[in-house]
């Protein structure tokens, strides 16, 4: 029996603005040690702010520490347990990676320091590039993109630049080949990124077996206007695209390029390489496959890897080797798409990812992939009797189920997800991919042991029983959290997006 959490001071933390007391201070600074310049000489009054920062909180150090410690307890997190979000790869974030990213020689290094003064950082970036090149089977890597969608945008821009150079630019800056093919199962970032490069998106449908429909692909490619295909592999229903070589061949024969969304690389590292499949360009998510922390929504890092042929178009500067034990920034790539970010990317994430690769070793990387796939397979096996599994193919690192059986009792995917919270698990990815009605996409990763996998399976089976016997219990879940389901429609109709002084504290 699950009972409601008791009210405690930690459950009642207000906004920091509501805690503010005039005169409180949480910081210490040394006294000003230079001769003071009179205020008006320093800056004329017209250029100074006159609001005395009204509304910005005044709190003590312990106020801040308690505030954030209390609200932190309202979060689920990986260290608490399994976080089976499909396509998000919520694996353990090693403390060692955190430690090395904080070494002063990295954390305190200015991005515009001279090359000779930043050799260690350049070497680190170079070595990570080499490893990612080996892992993907693609010749060249840029670490500049700050997240997956950013890497995707970079990859698509590279395709555009390559095609423009090969085919010439069409009328009104329209690419001569203007169609980017995207499967109906793709992440929403794919079409959004394609649009930024001036491409028109056309959808490739999937077969009932959850694979890209080759006939549909051939038909679309026959039109002669296809610039490329953006494909996730394993795809977003967790299946390896068995015809990947043929898919790449069809697109290449039609004059297009193949972009692979690397969101699901955790199923492949050490076992198969996109470059060997015929893929031309890919982005990786260091915050998925290479264990850098998700941080409640970032920072990420989205390296872009491509073939030798596409290398001239990668963003500048490139980090290159300039002799034995010497590294430099190279700006001399006249065909480059340009810069996608100031400086060189999310360096701190690169430090963590290199640490992940080096502490695993080649055999550890292969084993991690194996464990991730096995865990998903165990879940696929364990839940097939209770939930509708729309595809028969054995899944890779994630598996999709639906609410088809439970829906007959009025219990839907959202309810199952919320009820899972009461059992101590974070919900799976829900209602994605869009091609599967009521989708529940489950990705356990390699970071959970057998016992916890079994607990998860048992929790899901218990919910399936509840859906039959006591559906209200599920549709009203969660019952154990500090707040219940929130009225998102009301929140969107009259959005309150910031605190204002006149607003009274409405503490729960």
């Amino acid at each position, binding site marked *: 029996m699950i009972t409601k959490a008791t009210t405690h001071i930690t459950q009642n933390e207000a906004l920091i603005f509501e805690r503010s007391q005039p005169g409180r201070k949480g910081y210490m600074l040394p006294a000003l040690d230079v001769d003071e310049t009179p205020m008006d000489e320093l800056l004329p009054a017209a250029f100074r702010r006159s609001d005395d920062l009204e509304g910005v909180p005044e709190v003590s150090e312990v106020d801040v520490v308690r505030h954030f410690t209390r609200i932190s307890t309202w979060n689920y997190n990986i260290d608490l347990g399994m976080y089976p979000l499909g396509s998000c790869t919520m694996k353990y974030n090693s403390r060692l990676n955190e430690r090395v990213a904080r070494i002063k020689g990295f954390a305190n290094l200015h991005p515009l320091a001279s090359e000779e003064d930043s050799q260690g950082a350049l070497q680190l970036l170079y070595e990570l590039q080499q490893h990612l090149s080996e892992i993907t089977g693609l010749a060249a890597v840029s670490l500049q993109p700050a997240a997956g969608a950013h890497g995707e945008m970079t990859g698509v821009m590279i395709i555009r630049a390559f095609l423009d150079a090969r085919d010439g630019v069409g009328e009104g800056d329209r690419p001569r080949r203007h169609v980017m093919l995207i499967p109906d199962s793709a992440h929403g970032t794919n079409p959004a990124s394609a649009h930024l490069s001036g491409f028109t998106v056309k959808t490739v449908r999937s077969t009932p077996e959850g694979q890209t429909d080759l006939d549909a692909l051939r038909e679309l490619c026959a039109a002669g206007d296809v610039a490329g295909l953006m494909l996730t592999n394993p795809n977003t229903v967790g299946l390896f695209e068995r015809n990947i070589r043929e898919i790449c061949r069809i697109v290449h024969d039609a004059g297009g390029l193949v972009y692979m969304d690397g969101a699901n690389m955790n199923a492949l590292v050490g076992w198969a390489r996109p470059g060997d499949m015929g893929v031309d360009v890919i982005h990786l998510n260091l915050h998925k496959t290479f264990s850098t922390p998700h941080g409640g929504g970032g920072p990420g890092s989205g390296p872009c890897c491509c073939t030798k042929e596409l290398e001239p178009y990668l963003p500048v500067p490139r980090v290159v080797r300039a002799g034995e034990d010497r590294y430099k920034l190279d700006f001399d790539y006249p065909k480059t798409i340009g810069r996608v970010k100031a400086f060189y990317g999310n360096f701190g994430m690169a430090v963590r990812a290199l640490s992940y690769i080096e502490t695993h070793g080649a055999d550890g990387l292969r084993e991690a992939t194996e464990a991730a796939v096995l865990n998903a397979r165990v879940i696929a096996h364990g839940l097939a009797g209770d939930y509708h599994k729309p595809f028969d193919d054995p899944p890779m690192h994630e598996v999709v189920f639906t609410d088809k059986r439970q829906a007959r009792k009025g219990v839907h995917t959202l309810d199952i997800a919320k009820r899972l919270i009461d059992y101590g698990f974070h919900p799976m990815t829900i209602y994605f991919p869009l091609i599967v009605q009521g989708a529940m996409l489950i990705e356990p990763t390699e970071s959970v042991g057998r016992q916890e996998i079994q607990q998860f399976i048992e929790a899901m089976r218990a919910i399936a029983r509840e859906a039959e016997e006591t559906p209200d219990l599920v549709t009203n879940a969660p019952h154990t959290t500090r707040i219940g389901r929130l009225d*998102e429609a009301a929140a969107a109709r009259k959005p309150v997006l910031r605190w204002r002084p006149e607003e009274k504290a409405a503490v729960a």
Partner: protein
Amino acid sequence: MADIPDDLHYSKDHEWIRVEGDTGTVGITDHAQNQLGDIVYVELPRVGDSLEAGGVFGQVESVKAANDLYSPVSGEVTELNETLNDDPEQVNKDPYGAAWMLRLRLKDAGEVDKLMNAAEYEDYTKKITE
């Protein structure tokens, strides 16, 4: 069963139009609002914009979806229902009344004849929901 008033004309995109002289009043149908769920925002064009029959004139949003609005006929926008900015939920409550979206000056009255009447629209919605 969705409400389908007799005095209106309907498009396949689930918009209705009420014609008075050379002026048309446009909104979305009860069936459409039902499918969309809780409406949280309606984005409308500007007065003076000219709309094409079948062209996008705005967007209607629920919490998790954004759908285009298509003009049933061609014409120039003469008036907008500004109250939908503050109370988008009227689209759920009163789609044929308080939640009218815009008025336009018809360009070609003949276009109205190509739309469905209430009985035809009822058949149409039955067919697509089967």
